[in-house]
């Protein structure tokens, strides 16, 4: 392959294959540019930027095309799995999470418009940061390459730091932002170091190539690099755990949530978390599984060339020669197409069993500790935002469980493993409404009673029954009580722990559900049973105001999805059922 051929291939890959799959991000970027430019003319300063951001998000959602997952349309859509020479993957899961993030973004923009943070003055900055963060999260959800993992995490984090400090006059807000930055920078550094360790040990930063290397390296080479690999894996996990606010990297979470405005909290606790989960799933499946490449497209050319340039000196010769599979040098060495007896994809999946054991142990342990700690720490919170921060931490724990189950199931039953990932996607979909609803109510109540203390919610049921009932329903859904959406989400997410044999995790998750009852119920109790605190501003909150209608609109899916969750579940299944096969 000469240089010209390679270049042609690359141009074709970029323009014809990759860019169409990358349209939503491009639209978001264009929207951001437009928002910034809109500040220049005088009339641009007079309009709220949300009116630019919202159409931009809707257009991006159109290009994200969630309907493309439907069976009829799926065949015609070309899910050319790796795009941009293997940097990203454009598959069904990408479509799902990107659509989810964009749906959230649209709902979120409406929410911020109603709640009045940011004001017109701040709105260009705010929405630029939000959309920038969303682009980063979309990248996280489709990352296929460790550099993209890092870039995605950083692109999502940096706007979040600024958003956390958005309330400029508040000391707490600035403190929260600072804490967030320091924590984020530290974990990002550790993660980057971990990536470089892995790259050194495996000779690549392209995830499928790394997994193939893991599967095909001879035992002595693996044993030699074991420490480096383990360290690298742990360090990468530190970065992901920070984004997930998993224990012990959760310390930023309650402080940031208390300092930042409820709007920003909604953004951090829903979008950021969903993207981090998608990333965790990508990493866990990327290292725990190798499969046939979906299409023999250009990426192989790139990665082959790239490996030829960079990797040859690193890899033990005999192992490198026996490297077939997904991104094996098919294109530059067609004669190695015949797989070696020792390294067919089937065999490679088996040989990754130790990696999976490590991943299951690590993710499972993190999940168990995270949900237990989150629930216990939420007990004596008096501030609603802090309480919801710990609730977010606990839910991160629950949400990691299906990932552990999926990785454990890869060796047993690929279909069940895909369903486990689908359960994660379903949970993420439900979670959008639950947490967005909770924070929206907190924000609207802050606007009327000027307080975010739980005690000040006393007697809310008498003053504004609609919003009290809505918040109660959302909190019960967060506990996981039927017939609300949180129940099927939790049930399905826990369900796959049974076939994967992680019963201890199931028991921990179940008991945590019972534990979580106390603190969610305490809020409900204050709202319904307690008398109104003296000196509180009157909480008159009409359900016929825009805020009231918004609350009702967000709460409705929490009920509907609890009773009839088949459509969303089916959609989540469609998103995951070609992931591993």
């Amino acid at each position, binding site marked *: 392959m000469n240089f010209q051929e390679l270049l042609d291939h690359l141009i074709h890959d970029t323009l014809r294959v990759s860019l169409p799959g990358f349209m939503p991000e491009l639209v978001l970027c264009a929207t951001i540019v437009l928002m910034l430019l809109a500040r220049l003319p005088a009339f641009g300063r007079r309009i709220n930027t949300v009116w630019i951001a919202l159409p931009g998000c809707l257009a991006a959602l159109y290009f994200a095309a969630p309907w493309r997952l439907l069976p009829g349309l799926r065949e015609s859509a070309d899910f050319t799995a790796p795009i941009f020479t293997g940097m990203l993957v454009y598959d069904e899961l990408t479509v799902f999470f990107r659509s989810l993030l964009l749906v959230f973004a649209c709902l979120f923009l409406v929410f911020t418009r109603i709640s009045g943070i940011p004001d017109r003055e701040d709105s260009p900055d705010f929405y630029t940061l939000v959309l920038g963060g969303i682009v980063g999260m979309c990248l996280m959800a489709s990352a296929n390459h460790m550099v993209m993992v890092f870039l995605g995490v950083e692109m999502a984090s940096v706007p979040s730091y600024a958003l956390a400090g958005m309330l400029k006059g508040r000391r707490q807000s600035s403190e929260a932002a600072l804490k967030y930055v320091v924590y984020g920078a530290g974990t990002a550094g550790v993660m980057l170091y971990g990536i470089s360790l892995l790259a050194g040990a495996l000779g690549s930063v392209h995830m499928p190539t790394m997994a193939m290397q893991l599967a095909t390296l001879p035992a002595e080479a693996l044993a030699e690099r074991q420490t480096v690999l383990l360290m690298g894996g742990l360090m990468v996990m530190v970065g992901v755990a920070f984004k997930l606010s998993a224990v012990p990297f959760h310390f930023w979470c309650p402080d940031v949530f208390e300092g930042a405005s409820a709007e920003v909290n909604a953004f951090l606790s829903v979008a950021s978390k969903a993207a981090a989960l998608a990333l965790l799933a990508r990493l866990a499946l990327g290292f725990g599984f190798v499969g046939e490449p979906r299409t023999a497209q250009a990426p192989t050319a790139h990665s082959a060339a790239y490996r030829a340039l960079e990797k040859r000196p690193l890899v033990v010769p005999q192992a490198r020669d026996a490297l077939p599979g997904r991104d094996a040098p098919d294109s530059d060495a067609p004669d190695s197409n015949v797989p070696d007896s020792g390294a067919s994809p089937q065999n490679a999946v088996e040989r990754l069993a130790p990696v999976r054991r490590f991943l299951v142990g690590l993710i499972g342990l993190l999940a168990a500790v995270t949900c237990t700690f989150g629930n216990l720490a939420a007990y004596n919170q008096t501030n609603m935002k802090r309480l919801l921060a710990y609730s977010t931490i606990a839910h991160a724990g629950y949400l990691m469980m299906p990932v552990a189950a999926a990785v454990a199931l890869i060796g047993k039953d690929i*279909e069940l493993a895909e369903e486990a990932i689908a359960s994660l996607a379903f949970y993420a979909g439900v979670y959008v409404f639950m947490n967005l609803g909770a924070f929206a109510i907190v924000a609207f109540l802050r606007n009327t009673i000027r307080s975010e203390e739980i005690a000040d919610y006393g007697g809310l049921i008498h003053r504004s029954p609609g919003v009290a009932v809505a918040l109660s329903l959302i909190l*019960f859904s967060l506990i996981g*009580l*039927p*017939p609300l959406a949180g*129940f*099927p989400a939790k*049930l*399905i997410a*826990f*369900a796959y*722990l*049974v*076939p994967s044999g992680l*019963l201890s995790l*199931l*028991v921990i998750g*179940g*008991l945590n*559900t*019972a534990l979580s*009852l*106390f603190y969610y*119920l305490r809020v409900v*109790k204050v709202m*319904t*049973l307690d008398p109104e605190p003296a000196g509180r501003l009157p909480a008159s909150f009409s359900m016929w105001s825009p805020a009231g209608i918004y609350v009702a609109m967000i709460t409705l899916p929490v009920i509907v999805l609890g009773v*009839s*969750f*088949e459509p969303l*579940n*089916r959609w989540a*299944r469609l998103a995951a059922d070609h992931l591993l096969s």
Partner: protein
Amino acid sequence: MQSQYVLLLSLVVFLPALGALVLLLFPKDKPEAIKLFSLVVTVLVFLLTVYMAVPSPEGVATPRFELGAAGMQDAFSIDWIPSFNIFYFMGIDGISFTLVLLTSFLSMLAMGASWNITSHVKAYCILYLLLETGMIGVFMALDFFLFYVFWEVMLLPMYFLIGVWGGPRREYAAIKFFLYTLVGSVLMLIAILILYFNSDLRALAAQSDVVAGGSEVVAWDELHLHPDVTRAVREPGDNPIHTFNILALSKMGQHTDLFDAELLWGRSLQWWAFVLLFIGFAIKIPIVPLHTWLPDAHVEAPTPISMILAGILLKMGGYGIIRICYPICPEAAYDLAYVVTGIGVLSMVYGAFAALAQKDFKRLVAYSSVSHMGYVLLGIGVWTATASTNYNPDYWAMGMNGAMFQMIAHGISSAGMFFMVGVIYDRVHHRNLDEFGGLFARSPLYSGLAFGIFFAGLGLPGLCGFIGEFFVTLSVWSYSKAMAVVAAATVILTAAYILWTLQRVYLGAEYRGPHGDRITPITGREVAIAAPLLAFAIWFGVLPQSLFNYMTPSVNKTVQELADWTRDVKESRQRGASRLSINQAPTTSVEGETERIASSTQR
């Protein structure tokens, strides 16, 4: 025909919920209209269930309950969540229908007893009607998922009904109730998931008449599976088809070895499933030592909610054990039979002694519930169908029928007792047993009704409480003489605390407690609630057959299936095990041996 079943059963379950929706439109300041509307809804539900209970005229096919039929009636299965094989699957048989009747009856009466609720009437009535939907749904659901949803749906209304309208310690009592039940249901959920993922309709089909070449032990039609599922089973394939169908899971527990794999610490999957389910249901019954939520919840709840709690919610535990625990996990139930009966006896004795020690009238009634529900557990657990009795299920059937009867009887008598406490509490605003006395003179009609109902709770012959206790005690004799003696002795304790209570409250020279001037005669509304309860207590005491007719076929079928399982599966397993150990000599009688040979040749 199916659409008739769907309509009728769905109407019975969801009519209260629909009523709750309509109530949302009512203006807040019309409490009387709201209460009246709620009462009308509960009466309609009751009339619907009565309509079902009346036998159909000869030769006319109606969706009514058919007397004498043992299997599921009016069963239907509708697509709900196909990706998890979850169906909107309901049906009734003698076990569930009698409890549905009890539920609709008590719900109606308790709504009548709710008239002196004055604060937040609208919210109260909405929650109350939602609660009724949950309760009836639990008894009718045959899909495990649906069952669980209804089971949990009851929790929220109950939490608020205790927490908002209860007594001084209501918040503590409400959260204690919620937490206990939630822990139980989480354990139940774990068991449900374990059972679901190990179930396989293909394996069951091999034992049934649905595929050619199967052994035809199971009648497929009795499982009432959705046609789509049956079609999927008929198609060749080797991926397991999981199910939440309670009937199919029962057959799997009895006729396949799907649930026999070892799960943990040398115990089989079904052993763990049984333990988890049993704890979940036992919290509801409740058993000692998981009963501590009950005195608090019952005492703090307002009178009508206490009636519902004692009359219906406790029965769900017993129902769950009969319908779910025993049929799905027979092996574990067999192995743990002594544990189950032992817990039953413990609850009986402990509850009775605790009741003797109470100073609070309502707390005494609450502990009497613990004691009475112990009989239910004892009657269920009397597994007499073993080799030594030639697999004769008669005594066990008697015990389980007694347990079922006891549930209905206790539903009537305990609801009545709580109502009687409520009537006097509304007047004198205290429940201190030592400060009562002389009520008979002040309010003879009230006292007369109370005597009747309390005697029913005592188990006086001629009243409903006697039949269940008698059947259970009688059946236990052939199972364990020691337990029978204790069970019979508990009757004396029961008589002691109830007679002593009657003496302290109603007899005596005159009332000396506080608010003596407010003791007014019982009102017509109160009589209208107490009199039907007493009437049914007498009716079922004199004519128990009228109730047995409904439930005995289904109860006997359940027992017979388990007895067959003991004969065909369990004993052969044990024999297989004993063949391995050389030292074990045959100890059973000659008849037992011939029976074994006969049964093994049959197989």
